[in-house]
């Protein structure tokens, strides 16, 4: 017979303000099987846990129910407390009377009544709990980082420096990511390449780091500690072991009409190319879609000019399978498409550009060799307008609901750099709010205004109209309460950023949770910001939410520490809430095997004692190391032989009964 203790937490006033905890205690005490019930200010505190421990020891409790916050918060805390008091940690159930009750209801009567019912359901369930013992599983001492931007590079470096093997998988021909496209960085105006390139080189040279560029993750199976990942190494058409990176092939390639992605399509590149001069690896790829040799069979210039004989038109995609203990997602971002913002004339005038395009124009290696000029007539502008919040903070379907966070600062940077280098260019910034929290950030923005004379006008732009060789900007000045209609030479749009569109596919492969904006969800918004709710998956950089370079680097380091913490373990404790077949009822029909996503179910001949009849039968056996405890098999099983430990049929039915009582 179970002896149950019930512990009701006040959570300060978080619960006690809307739930009459005393009444919950009284009601719980009357439930059959309950031999102890009490309440306390903070059950999760040392003192609270001590109360649980004392009650278990003194009243010889066999199971406990804690009525408190979400089990996602403190289930483990209370399981450990129970364990220290000498009972099995799986003899603990949580009634969530905070997130699911006190925080959403105002009426005390109503909330208390609901809390009592939730407590009853938990008591009914715990009465049927059985002690469970977790198994263990191995940890592959190798990590995978998906994405080779600054986030991925930093994470990989930190993991590698701790002594673990780490692989970077990067989709494009080079690591470097968005940061390699930037000209200068705020708030110190360091040259982006100058601070990024050493890190790229370090990653490439690190003996613990393997870099797979021009590669993509194709398939992921397994689970924390033991993931199996298929990586597609796309055919480069260039033999990496032979290429010397001399660059002659790129110079001689006759097909030069492909929009240059690295320069955001502002100029063109050859069909065989490295994205930028400092690319790592410094080995070109052939863009087969645009290569004449691949399109018509007639060309082959690159093969002819290559002294090293590295060109290989017959190279095939290669798929390698590697095992990893942990996976870090660092897939980064792109700017949104501006097709739905044609009031800013982005599609109507080449002189309306995005901020990222301006980075390329300002960069010495960019399409204009660093000269600030209009893309229409290559004349230097005399006046420039910056528009903030293009696509950010939008409640409509056109844009993104969130603040992209980095735009206020990079716009101040652009404005300042232009005023510094071209003092005769008049710069106006239209803003809704200037958001510059961060060390030396607001000072930076103020410098743009006070020292560099950038005009900041509070008010959004309504329309940009090409007029002759000028752009007519129509805007509101909310502080002066007037409408501005001004001519300018260039308009720069602070375009909203969004997670790299590929991330959804990757999230699905990893079964990592993702939000409606395609940002990966962290396990806890405040306390577990670099972990995905899926064990063994970690988040680094903008794939989790908008952030600037310093924040990205900090988060990359944090993710690396979490990975190292995982890889340092000799083995992992597995979830004991796994499926289990009752050989008496199992008829070996193989239905469960078909629905198991993990291949955890097999069949073996067992000697079964069915009410005195002893016979050998083919029955299902669950490999508890592979089973992840989803329960699909339990419902599929036609004979009711399969059940899930910790969430058994009887337990859930008991909860249903308690709720509907």
């Amino acid at each position: 017979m179970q002896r149950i203790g019930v512990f009701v937490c006040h959570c300060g006033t978080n619960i006690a303000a809307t739930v009459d905890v005393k009444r919950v205690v009284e009601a719980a005490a009357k439930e059959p099987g309950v031999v102890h019930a009490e309440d306390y200010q903070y059950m999760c505190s040392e003192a609270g846990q001590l109360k649980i421990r004392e009650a278990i020891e003194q009243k010889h409790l066999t199971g406990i129910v804690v009525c408190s916050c979400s089990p996602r918060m403190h289930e483990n805390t209370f399981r450990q407390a129970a364990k220290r008091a000498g009972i099995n940690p799986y003899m603990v159930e949580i009634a969530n009377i905070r997130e699911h009750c006190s925080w959403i209801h105002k009426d005390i009567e109503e909330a208390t009544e609901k809390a009592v019912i939730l407590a009853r359901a938990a008591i009914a369930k715990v009465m049927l709990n059985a002690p469970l013992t977790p198994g263990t599983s191995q940890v592959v001492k190798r990590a995978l980082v998906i994405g080779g931007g600054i986030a991925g590079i930093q994470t990989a470096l930190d993991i590698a420096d701790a002594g673990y093997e780490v692989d970077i998988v990067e989709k494009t021909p080079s690591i470097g990511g968005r940061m390699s496209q930037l000209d200068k960085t705020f708030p110190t105006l360091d040259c982006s390449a100058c601070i990024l390139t050493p890190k790229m080189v370090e990653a490439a040279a690190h003996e613990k780091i393997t870099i797979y560029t021009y590669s993509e993750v194709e398939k992921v199976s397994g689970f924390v500690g033991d993931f199996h990942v298929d990586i597609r190494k796309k055919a480069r058409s260039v033999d990496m072991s032979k290429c010397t990176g001399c660059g002659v092939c790129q110079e001689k390639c006759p097909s030069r009409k492909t929009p240059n992605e690295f320069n955001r399509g502002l100029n063109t590149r050859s069909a065989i190319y490295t994205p930028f001069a400092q690319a790592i690896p410094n080995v070109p790829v052939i863009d087969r879609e645009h290569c004449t040799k691949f399109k018509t069979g007639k060309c082959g210039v690159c093969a002819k000019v290559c002294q090293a004989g590295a060109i290989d038109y017959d190279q095939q995609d290669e798929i390698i399978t590697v095992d990893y203990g942990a996976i870090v997602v660092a897939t980064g971002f792109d700017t949104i498409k501006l097709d739905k913002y044609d009031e800013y004339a982005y599609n109507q005038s080449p002189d309306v550009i995005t901020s990222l395009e301006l980075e390329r124009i300002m960069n010495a290696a960019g399409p204009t060799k660093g000269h600030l000029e209009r893309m229409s007539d290559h004349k230097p502008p005399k006046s420039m307008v910056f528009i903030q919040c293009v696509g950010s903070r939008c409640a409509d379907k056109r844009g993104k609901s969130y603040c992209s966070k980095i735009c206020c600062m990079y716009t101040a940077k652009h404005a300042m750099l232009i005023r510094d280098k071209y003092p005769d260019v008049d710069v106006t910034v239209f803003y809704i709010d200037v958001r510059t929290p961060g060390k030396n950030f607001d000072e930076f923005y103020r410098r743009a205004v006070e020292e560099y004379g950038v005009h900041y006008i509070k008010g959004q732009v309504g329309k940009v109209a090409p007029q002759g060789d000028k752009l007519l900007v129509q805007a509101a000045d909310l502080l002066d309460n007037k409408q501005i209609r001004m001519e300018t030479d260039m308009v720069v749009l602070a375009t909203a950023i969004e997670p790299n569109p590929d991330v959804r596919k990757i999230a699905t492969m990893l079964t990592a949770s993702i939000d409606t904006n395609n940002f990966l969800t962290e396990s806890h918004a405040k306390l577990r910001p670099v972990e995905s709710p899926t064990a063994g998956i970690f988040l680094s950089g903008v794939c989790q939410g908008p952030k600037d370079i310093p924040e990205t680097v900090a988060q990359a380091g944090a993710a690396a520490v979490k990975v190292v913490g995982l890889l340092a373990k000799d083995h992992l404790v597995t979830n004991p809430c796994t499926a289990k077949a009752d050989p008496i009822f199992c008829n070996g029909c193989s239905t469960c095997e078909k629905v198991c996503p993990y291949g955890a179910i097999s069949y073996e001949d067992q000697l079964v004692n069915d009410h005195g009849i002893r016979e050998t039968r083919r029955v299902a056996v669950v490999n508890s190391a592979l089973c992840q405890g989803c329960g699909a098999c339990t419902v599929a099983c036609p004979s009711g032989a399969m059940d899930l430990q910790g969430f058994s049929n009887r337990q859930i039915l008991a909860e249903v009964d308690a709720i509907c009582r």
Partner: protein
Amino acid sequence: MQKVDMAKADRLREMSGVNTRKCMKCGKCSASCPAYEEMDIRPHQFVSYVESGDIEPLLESKSIWKCLSCFACVERCPRDVKPAKLIEAVRQMVVRQRGGNYLSPNEVPELLNEELPQQLLASAFRKYSK
């Protein structure tokens, strides 16, 4: 001292279906408005005046006769606030009151000319009077 009339503000919100709280005060409505220069109270101010219950100035504003219902503000508003509908609601509130008509049939003959399309009269009457 400004007179706060929340009952009228609520009535305007109801008539227009506009949720004034969604406004983030970016001013894009006023930036887009082609009749801005003619207005004494500007489109973005209509939203904040209603939000604060300051209705009397709106009822007396000449802006309500200047708004063209061209919907540029509605189309471009990033918060889906629809200022034009709010201005229309104020106009309705005025013309529904006795004597609030801005156009009387007596005026019409002198406004007519040879080419004037019927829809101009029809729409002006719809906009300006009960």
